[in-house]
């Protein structure tokens, strides 16, 4: 199959073949190779199938699941969902390179271009405020540099990273463990719409497939497969995120981990990865710089894409951009800021810490509250429903 028209004509059958339950990528590919086109597979006699497969199981599966292929495919196209089989010229080249590459992929929106630089940001669902901040900051920085963010649209790190990339005007791709027409988790309704509009929602599962635990590990290999590097923001010791890391290593992708405090269980997975040799992600700038010297080295020469913005040594190694110096705050406010952290704490805890550290202990509670809300107004402190934490890192 060479001509694009020919491929287009075969699409309904390719979609059908992909959706046949019990037949995986490997067999689908083998069948098409042996018989020429998916339509031939659809129309193949039991005898010829037996000759290829060597058992009657395959023929039985195919025969049992024959249905009206055209109608279903048209419905899907009308819903704005496209199917790209592996022999399609637009099928991402990066996916062809990975072991066990999928037979086809469904797309709502668009696919990353082959020369598009992309990084996967993954992490825990029940993440901390620290993880949320880091995921958001990295995603925004990547988006500003024209690097797209690939993730799984899950709760927690995934969703925050993709939301951050969109907010910074970048493109982002979500790989789902269900049909691309289903928004899972449902709380990411708004995010799902935005990703469809300015990026793409991808899946190897046909539309209408409900999410299922067994779908998620295989989709993780697509996340890492579509990216040049994988950034793990927060993960517990036993985390699904680490499956993505395994896949990435298998596929030869760079793995970066964000270091965390050794007392935080949510950083155990990341710190463990660092021990095992993962690259350290200290700031988006450092990460982009390293990648442009390794993975993207050839891109720059070939296509003249400017590398990452290098702000010089001063910002190298810390989160840049938002980490502005604390301006326009007085001595007392500065002292109060020194007590706060990304982890939001209650007013009571702030007060206790102030007493213990002998900071601002001349102030009564109401005055302390006033000081705190001044900082909220000035945008340094964020109120998370009665708990207060730092909004931006402050370099004092």
């Amino acid at each position, binding site marked *: 199959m060479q001509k694009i028209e020919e491929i287009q004509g075969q699409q309904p059958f390719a979609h059908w073949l992909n959706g046949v339950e019990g037949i995986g990528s490997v067999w689908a590919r083998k069948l098409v190779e042996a018989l020429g086109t998916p339509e031939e597979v659809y129309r193949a006699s039991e005898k010829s199938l037996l000759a290829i497969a060597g058992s009657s199981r395959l023929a039985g599966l195919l025969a049992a699941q024959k249905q009206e292929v055209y109608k279903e495919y048209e419905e899907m196209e009308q819903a704005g969902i496209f199917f790209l089989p592996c022999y399609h010229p637009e099928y991402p080249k990066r996916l062809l390179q990975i072991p066990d590459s999928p037979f086809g992929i469904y797309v709502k929106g668009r696919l990353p271009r082959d020369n598009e630089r992309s990084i996967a940001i993954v992490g825990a*669902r*029940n*993440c*901390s*405020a620290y993880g*949320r901040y880091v995921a958001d900051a990295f995603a925004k920085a990547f988006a500003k540099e024209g690097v797209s963010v690939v993730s799984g649209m899950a*709760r*927690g790190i995934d*969703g*925050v990273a993709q939301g951050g990339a969109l907010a910074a005007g970048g493109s982002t791709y979500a790989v789902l463990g269900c049909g691309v027409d289903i928004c899972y988790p449902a*709380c990411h309704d708004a995010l799902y719409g935005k990703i469809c509009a300015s990026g793409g929602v991808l899946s190897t599962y046909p539309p209408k497939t409900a999410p299922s635990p067994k779908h998620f590990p295989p989709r993780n290999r697509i996340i890492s497969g579509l990216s040049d590097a994988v950034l793990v923001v927060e993960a517990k010791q036993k985390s699904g995120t680490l499956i993505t890391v395994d896949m990435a290593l298998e596929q030869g992708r760079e793995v970066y981990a964000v270091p965390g405090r050794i*007392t*935080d*269980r*949510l950083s155990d997975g990341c710190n463990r990865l660092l021990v095992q040799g993962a690259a350290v992600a200290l700031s988006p700038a450092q990460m982009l710089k390293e990648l442009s010297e390794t993975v993207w080295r050839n891109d720059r020469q070939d296509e003249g894409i400017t590398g990452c913005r290098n702000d010089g040594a001063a910002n190298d190694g810390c989160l840049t951009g938002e980490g502005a110096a604390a301006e326009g705050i007085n001595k007392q406010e500065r002292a109060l800021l020194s007590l706060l952290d990304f*982890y*939001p*704490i*209650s*007013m*009571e*805890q702030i*007060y*206790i810490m102030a007493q213990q550290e002998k900071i601002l202990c001349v102030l009564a*509670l*109401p*005055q302390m*509250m*006033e000081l*705190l*809300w*001044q900082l*909220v*107004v000035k*945008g340094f402190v964020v*109120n*998370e*429903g*009665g*708990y207060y934490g730092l909004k931006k890192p402050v370099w004092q």
Partner: protein
Amino acid sequence: MFSAVNTGGVRGMDAYPVRVEVDLSRGLPCFELVGSAGSEVKEARERVQIALKNEGVVLPVSKIIVNLSPADIRKEGTGYDLPIAAGLLACMDFFHASDFLHTAFLGELALNGEVRRVSGVLPIVIALKKEGIDTFLVPAENAGECAVVPGIRTIGIKSVRELLCYLKADEEERQKCFPAYIRERAGRVEENGKDFAQVCGQESVKRAAEVAAAGFHHLMLAGAPGTGKTMIAERIPDILPPMTEEEKLEVSGIYSIAGKLQTEGLMEKRPFLAPHHTVSPQAMAGGGRIPRPGLLSLAHRGILFLDEMPEFSSAVLEVLRQPMEEKKVHIDRSYASYTYPADFMLVCAMNPCPCGYFPDRNRCHCSPADIRRYLGRISGPILDRIDMITEAAPVAVKDLYEAREAESTAAIKLRVLGARERQQFRYRESPYRFNGELPGSEVKKYCQPSFDGQRFLEQMSEAGQISARAFHKILRLARTAADLEGREKIEQTHLAEAVCYNSGRRRFWKQMDM
């Protein structure tokens, strides 16, 4: 032979006078009780007959008819025994009913002739006094609450024999043998051994309790298990300003009707009710076939404390909605509708998540969905009526050992009383008592922030920290904070503190995406 004596009955919160009319006539011997008498009132026939017999009075063999007038109001309760007995004795010429036109009888009879306590004495006495009755013969156990009403003569009666003695005696003998019951003035305030000085740390929670008590604001305490939420809640009644005489009578009336008034008479302390979370909506609101005041009414002018609030059934929590708005409970029955007062201060405590350790991610394993479901048990309308939310922080054992001197209840109460006085003065010409009662329409009049304060509020609103909905709440709270400090103008500090108490609300409606 006809006679009539005075007594009274209670319907809902209102008492009304009842005339017990007794007639003995010829005819087939019988003993009938008419006048919309409930079943326990009808049983009076047996109790009265036996009690009189055991005291040596045998009823004549004749047709006995007793009527409770007005006959169209349904009578409930056992307080009619004694007046019926008195009516019968009058018919049997033991005394002249015409001598006792200004005397009322109230009490239940035991079969051996003893007089037992009844409920609702206080409101009945108040109502009958207005009708010109000045002498009350009540069970000795109820004498305390009866004597609370000034300008009347209270005679505590222990048995039918005593009743007979009283009725037969002449005025001089009565003065000697039946002195009017004089209520001892309860000067002592019971020490319950609970003091704020015993609570280590939790300064911000104690401060919130102080503000809540000073302005009668509804308060929610959130925090991990074992942080002292219950301990603090239990101590709030002690810092509340004392009840006025009028309030005491009001609260005692409710307790009297519910049959829960202690023998001492008046309720001196503000009520503190802490129902278990398995309580039923009926117990909360009041009810039963013959409605009785529920916990909401028993907490009138006091505190209703709901520990582990999300564990209460949603039906129970929704019952709180109307009373928190109208400060009344309405109960409707096919034959009548009742209204009980329910102006309480709600104090509730809850964990921040099912396991209790949120937001400490190292200890809390609850998923955002779990937390949302847990917090979701408290509905928006209830949350809207809670003025303050405050967080208690975990306390380290070390801090318990090295506890610094904490402020005592007496010191806090002093400030609360100051704030109370300011409020009394401010609202002297309006129906409000506390800042927490101010309706939205009046907030503007009484809670004007200073220029700086206004600018601060605008900034907060621009920063998306306060909504229009919370605006009045914040001003009311700031008013109380300013009153506690003795300031007439609401300054930025007061507003910041108020915003702080309001910010916990966010957690409930925020789409928790983490």
